[in-house]
């Protein structure tokens, strides 16, 4: 099974997009070799702008370019770019400028660099801003289609990408549909809603749960906002409970979004799983996923505990 970091897929897709759409411009803040905008920069030097280590100005300039008809992709690590919240709030959200904000290096999956470089609260802050779409693709094909979609979509987008490699979970011929969750595996007992780097772990967890006699449905939520509320409610009705898992703080992320929908429309058992309101730390990617229990084993164990509790 092919494995690729979604930041890598993004960089390749962006360089392709540059041929197709002359309005696409790319801005980076001294991380082009990490966000993978370097491919676009090599191919289209006249449409690539290096802003140095000054993210707020980069975001504002992207807004100005968008207001003058360009389609800017402003890129940095998720924690740094969404850390310029007020600039995003005013110059992108409230101004409704057609800026594509790209945050790479999300979650504890970045590994050794440790907490300061980990985007663990980015979804929480971005979700609080009206009219900004939040997308987190889970593999190469989904990333490439999401990038093409973001360029065509008229409005602000925040896209969240991994440093670590992720295996393919979607088949050839997959079609990305904005705002629609994807059922990756059927199941009747429990629904696991995963996003980004945790999706393939959730798929592996399904096998471990099956050994325990639990039939888990696995859903990939690539669009966190607007959330596929129809799908969430259908799963709440068709299975005994919902279990969300994300490489992000459980406060404010996918789990919170699902909780908001359930509470208001169809109260049902829910377990939010992910980074349990703590800061991250250094370590190998796999070691961290294991230690924070968001690898397949950790997910299966937490999901089984939850299921056993609610099915008593």
């Amino acid at each position, binding site marked *: 099974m092919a494995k690729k970091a979604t930041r890598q897929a993004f960089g390749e897709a962006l360089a392709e997009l540059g041929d197709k759409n002359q309005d696409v411009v790319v801005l980076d803040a001294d991380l082009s070799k990490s966000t993978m905008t370097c491919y676009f920069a090599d191919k289209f030097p006249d449409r690539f702008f290096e*802003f140095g280590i000054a993210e707020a100005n980069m975001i504002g300039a992207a807004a100005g370019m968008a207001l003058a008809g360009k389609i800017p992709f402003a890129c940095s690590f998720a924690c740094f770019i969404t850390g310029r919240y*007020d600039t995003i709030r005013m110059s992108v959200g409230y101004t409704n400028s057609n800026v594509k904000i790209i945050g790479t290096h999300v979650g504890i999956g970045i590994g050794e660099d440790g907490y300061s470089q980990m985007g663990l609260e980015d979804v929480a802050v971005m979700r609080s801003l009206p009219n900004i779409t939040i997308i987190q693709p889970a593999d190469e094909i989904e990333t490439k289609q999401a990038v093409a979609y973001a360029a065509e979509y008229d409005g602000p987008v925040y896209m969240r990408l991994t440093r670590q490699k992720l295996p393919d979970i979607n088949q050839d011929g997959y079609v990305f549909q904005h705002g629609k969750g994807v059922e990756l595996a059927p199941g009747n007992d429990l629904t696991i809603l995963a996003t980004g780097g945790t999706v393939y772990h959730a798929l592996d967890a399904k096998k471990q749960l099956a050994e325990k006699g639990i039939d888990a449905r696995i859903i990939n939520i690539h669009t966190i906002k607007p959330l596929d509320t129809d799908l969430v409610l259908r799963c709440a009705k068709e299975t005994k409970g919902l279990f969300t898992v994300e490489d992000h703080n459980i406060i404010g992320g996918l789990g919170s979004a699902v909780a908001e929908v359930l509470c208001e429309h169809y109260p049902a058992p829910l377990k939010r799983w992910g980074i349990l309101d703590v800061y991250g730390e250094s370590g190998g990617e796999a070691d961290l996923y294991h230690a924070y229990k968001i690898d397949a084993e950790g997910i299966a164990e937490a999901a089984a505990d939850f299921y056993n509790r609610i099915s008593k």
Partner: protein
Amino acid sequence: MAFQLTRDVNTIKSYAKTIRMNVIKMLTEAASGHPGGSLSATDVVAALLFAVMRHDPTNPKWDNRDRFIMSKGHCIPAWYAALAQAGYFDEKELCTLRRLGSRLQGHPDRCKLEAIEASTGSLGQGLSIALGMAMAAKMNNADWRVYCMIGDGESQEGQIWEAVMAAAKFKTDNLTVILDHNNGQIDGYVADVMPIMPIEEKFRAFNWHVIGVDGHDINQILNALDEAADTKGRPTLILANTVKGKGVSFMENNIGWHGKAPSKEEEEKALQELAAI
């Protein structure tokens, strides 16, 4: 059709006078707002819209228009008053300032009023947007220019200096920044709150072209704007030395008038003084 600009100084002064009177009326009607900085900015605003900028009140989104961003968004009443005079909307609408449902938000909102280029009010951000616009014009080989007014208090924001650094790097000579140097901010004099001087030297150190003017002398303002347009290879800062509350004796250089609306009596007194200019 493009707005018919004028270089007649007395005509521009008369526009400025009407802007000031309308600012006083608008703020009194709204019972809130920022007179000090609106009045200090007025002469530059009048020179830009009536003498320099290429624009069309019947087509606010004309591709080839020059762009203006009021980065110190709280002073937008001066720009609203100027827009109304230029014919962008009826002068009567000015009295809706800050009311529920008004297109004239307390701080500018581009999604509500077409003639507004960028939503500002959180200080330090308008210059970055102006820079992005100027870069886009260069990419398109378009000859429209970008004007951005910032405040001296606003220059305490870090993002201003990020933008100043970048504008020099990207050689945006189609960007002109006017710094309304009125010496005041909410908590007191800029020199006490957080000194920014010598600001000319700071901009020069970042490789900007810098011109100092009396921000209430129309001739000096026009000459500086022309010099900025003729300057190639780098952006220009026009340091407009102004008086906060200019034109109303009891508001001039009085920090208390940064963000306070006049009472009815004060309005009357202010309008009498302005009418006599």
